[in-house]
């Protein structure tokens, strides 16, 4: 499938469908982007599992670190890979050894490995590359609009009532909104040159 752009329905389907997320490369340092994303997703009710061999014995927001995907010891719906493009393939290969297989492999903003994606898709795993689940959740729930960010969604329906404080529901009816083609092009050029 085309990994340059994803439809909102594809991303929304993934974020609505998965319950447990193993984050490979999660950091306990509270200014790292992986910490931000881990905390945000945990607050939205996902069963988060931090995977990082360097921090085994510690825990992240009450969740104990595991050294590898194999150490999780229970089925996991989605693997979120917080590593550079050059470190993606071994993680995907490890994920392909899990039983049952994960439903989704997600590579973070800036990370893309088309060969690894093809391998995962060959066994029926959905793949997202070069995106952040926190940003996508915030965008599709329109929460991110509070920061003046172009959510690229439009809706004439009453926004869902905030639940759990100010958290909005992902199940918002919307159609495509403003595009950010120049930014997408720049990101593509950047991943191609690195």
């Amino acid at each position, binding site marked *: 499938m085309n990994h340059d752009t994803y439809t909102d329905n594809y991303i929304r389907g993934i974020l609505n469908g998965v319950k447990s997320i193993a984050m490979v490369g999660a950091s306990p340092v509270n200014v790292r982007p992986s*910490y*931000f994303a881990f*905390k945000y997703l945990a607050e939205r009710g996902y069963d988060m599992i931090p995977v990082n061999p360097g921090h085994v014995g510690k825990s992240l927001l009450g969740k104990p670190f595991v050294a590898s995907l194999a150490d999780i010891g229970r089925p996991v719906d989605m693997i979120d890979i917080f590593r550079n493009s050059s470190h993606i393939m071994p993680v995907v290969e490890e994920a392909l050894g899990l039983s049952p297989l994960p439903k989704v492999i997600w590579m973070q903003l800036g990370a893309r490995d088309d060969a690894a994606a093809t391998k995962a898709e060959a066994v029926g795993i959905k793949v997202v590359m070069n995106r952040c689940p926190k940003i996508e959740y915030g965008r599709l729930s329109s929460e991110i609009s509070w*920061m*003046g*960010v172009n959510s690229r969604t*439009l809706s004439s329906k009453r*926004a869902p009532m905030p639940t759990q404080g100010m958290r909005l529901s992902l199940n918002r009816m919307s159609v495509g*909104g403003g595009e950010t083609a120049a930014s997408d*092009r720049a990101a593509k050029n950047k991943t191609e040159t690195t």
Partner: protein
Amino acid sequence: MTDRLPGFSTLAVHAGAQPDPTTGARATPIYQTTSFVFNDADHAASLFGLQSFGNIYTRIGNPTNAVLEERVAALEGGTAALAVASGHAAQVVVLQQLMKPGDEIIAARKLYGGSINQFTHAFKSFGWNVAWADPDEIESFERAVTPHTKAMFIESIANPSGSVTDIEAIAAVARKAGVPLIVDNTLATPYLIKPIDHGADIVVHSLTKFLGGHGNSLGGIIVDAGTFDWSKDNKYPMLSEPRPEYHGIKIQETFGNFAFAIACRVLGLRDLGPALSPFNAFMILTGIETLPLRMQKHCDNAKAVAEFLAGHPAVAAVNYAGLPGDKYNNLARKYAPKGAGAVFTFSLKGGYDAGVNLVSNLRLFSHLANVGDTRSLVIHPASTTHSQLDDAAKIKSGAAPDVVRLSIGIEDKDDLIADLDQALRA
């Protein structure tokens, strides 16, 4: 399969706004509040630490302003935007993220007179140096590049001359120099020109003009194109280096392709303070809903008035890029095919005195220092907006002593032509 993309007019009405979750209000409510309650201590800490999206204090963000920000970002094709108190505030906030004392910005010589003043005097006092270049001579931008250059700044359609800038050519120079191109798109609006499509990295506006469009509310906005890599060398430490006020967060690493807009908000607006009133944001939002209709009428009227003036015996010259044969007509056809805007200048055979007479004899045109109102406006730049420049600089910026500037409104064009005709004969 891809999502269907909505058209410009649909975005002008809908982008950023959805019915209020609590009341169902369809128009965007005016959240006239200074501050927002936290759920608990952890929520407060998450917001202050930039870990959660949300509202803290209207100097940093406000839900009404956020609708305006998303709408303009969508119209420009940017990733995010930040609304501020005025167009001037937008320029200060943008450059604060990019410039340190001793750094340089290369700016087009043809700028709004207020911007020339701001760059020459206020910015100089910050230690930010400006090198002026001629947008009609692309090489002059290239020649001005030094190791201290941090940005380039142009207007898409220049005020007051109405000349159209070759954005793509200057974007290429900026890319080669490794600096962002900032485009002031006030006079064109995204209805006529979308600078990001032509290589701009940052777009700024005075919302006071055509976007708000009714001459009733000041505002400014910064749009992040999401195209510039702020971390590829050490030129932009505000975005690439750990920020001490946020426990060592790196802004670009954390916020990706909307990092510049976030830096403007959490480093610029937070510390400099030129916040936009939510009431003004509401007025401007209402204006933007009719932007496509108004802008087309502005342009159609302007072309008719320019054609009339070009054939008038009292008129020496008309500078309107929408006229065939105008120096900028080819650029206008390329960049602004729907119309060349509604602000332009002309000169009178009778010189300065005839200009003064014209202004005082007009009955529908208002004599004032603004552009982009529903009403038609007239001014003599040499004695007002550009009065602080010396004569040579006035001529270079398109505001020679015999020049009169018009901003054509959305009245009936025949009434505007009749008013000009009687004033030119009086």
